């Protein structure tokens, strides 16, 4: 049960119920679609870049609480970051949910901010892709790949 409440933390449920930056982004100059063929979940991420800096980011799509919360938190966190900082955050987040790095809560909050609420995912290997799909989609949008990325 403690693992379950780690997974569905209040912040996760809150972002699931009231996703931030959900919807189309007018004036977007980059976008990508992400797809998880195992479950059929789809996400579209749009970015408005100002030079090398993420000015605005929005998302749309269908997904579980984990993917929706991850996408919602992501849109809040990367605003104002440049490409390099965004990718570094993605990498740290990826390592934390796959359990490659073990951080205590203080360290996680320091390095990941509100994303630390998703660290419980590392106890549920089947759900890692739900958490990382929005990030891979964002990366594709930043790289201007535009095409569909998949978890597989």
């Amino acid at each position, binding site marked *: 049960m403690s693992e379950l409440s780690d997974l569905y933390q209040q912040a996760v*449920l809150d972002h699931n119920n009231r996703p931030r930056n959900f919807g189309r982004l007018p004036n977007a100059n980059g976008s990508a679609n992400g797809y998880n063929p195992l479950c*059929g979940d789809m996400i579209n991420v749009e970015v408005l870049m100002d030079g090398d800096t993420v000015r605005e980011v929005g998302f749309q799509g269908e*997904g*579980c609480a984990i993917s*929706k919360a991850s996408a919602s938190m992501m849109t809040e966190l990367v605003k104002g970051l440049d490409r390099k900082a965004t990718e570094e955050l993605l990498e740290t987040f990826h390592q934390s949910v796959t359990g490659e790095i073990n951080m205590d809560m203080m360290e996680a909050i320091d390095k990941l901010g509100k994303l630390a609420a998703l660290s419980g995912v590392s106890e549920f290997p089947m759900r890692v892709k739900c958490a990382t799909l929005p990030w891979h989609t964002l990366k594709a949008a930043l790289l201007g790949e535009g095409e569909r990325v998949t978890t597989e």
Partner: protein
Amino acid sequence: MSPDGARPIDDAEARRLRSQFPAINQEVRGKPLVYLDNAATSQKPQSVIDAISDYYARYNANVHRGLHALSEMATAEYEGARAKVRSFINASEDREIIFVRGTTDGINLVAGSYGPANVGPGDEIVISEMEHHSNIVPWQMLCEQTGAELKVVPFNEDGELLIDEYERILGPRTKLVAMAHTSNALGTINPVKTIVEMAHARDIPVLIDGAQAVPHGPVDMQDLDCDFFTFSSHKVFGPTGMGVLYGKAEILDAMPPYQGGGDMIKSVTFEKTIYNDLPYKFEAGTPNIAGAIGLGAAIDYVESVGMARIFDYEKSLLHYAHEALSSIERVRILGTAREKAGVVSFLLDGIHAHDVGTILDTEGVAIRTGHHCAQPVMQHFGIPATARASLAFYNTRSDIDALVKGLDKVIEVFNP
């Protein structure tokens, strides 16, 4: 009362049968396992596990080749399994039973062999909207290869095929009808016999995907009169990597081989090869001997329980599950056909199926979540995924009660 006159399966018998399936009798995440994912794969009784290990431990040898004692035993058991399958599905002859890897392989065999020999540009293949991907993609590949066209018969909001649409769609260019006996995503039992009659009235052959039908009730090839029928061993309490393609002898005889290799030939020279007779023409290479023997043991097992009794018991359990799930206000059941097998696909309002699946898993309840390899069914309802509980004869009402309790937990997590 069952059609065969035997007494119905009751809760006590279901519990006794369940005790013969070792993988069910364990704890998962500290809770007793409640296995409700039988449409994905079924558990195996000890007798099947023993039959497979007995083959490897006592008489492992190749079949149809050696003159030695072990090979003779292995061949007798392998061919004995074929005879069991013939009797189990009431085919006319053993040579109509082709051993394949599973339902997918069976469909691909027909698409790959019968297809190019009989289907050309402008011809049509008719499938339904509720097919598993394995009964869609091989036909799409065939259409791509031959220039034929795929036609799709839709279903209504209850998940019942629109039979009148067959009347409209079946035409002079239709070369084959392929359809699921029972839908894996919705549980609908289709009126396959009626559709076979409709197609045969126009001289169109019919392939039935029996993967979800065979484990849950009697099937009879001579009564159905279908031209092809295929199912998987692992869904009928046998091993994985094993399956059956039934075909009418005269049709199979006329078909070119699917794969070339050993065992499927009578003689080989560099100038000319003479193919073997049925069923060996379609069984190139060393077959899945242990798989066939395991399937034979699984058939022995379910026949000792009685397929008609299994059908009746699961029907009453399905009724109980429908009632129980409908009592949860936020549940919406997809698939409410009048004729329905033990599959309950459902949505929990506002909560994604994956979250439902994860939370149920922490309660020891195993169900399937996702699109169930039937994305067109999901598209019909405009949803990405469902949660699906699927039954077998070893499930009991207390399993359904555990599911309902688990769903209460899901709702509690999302509405603290």
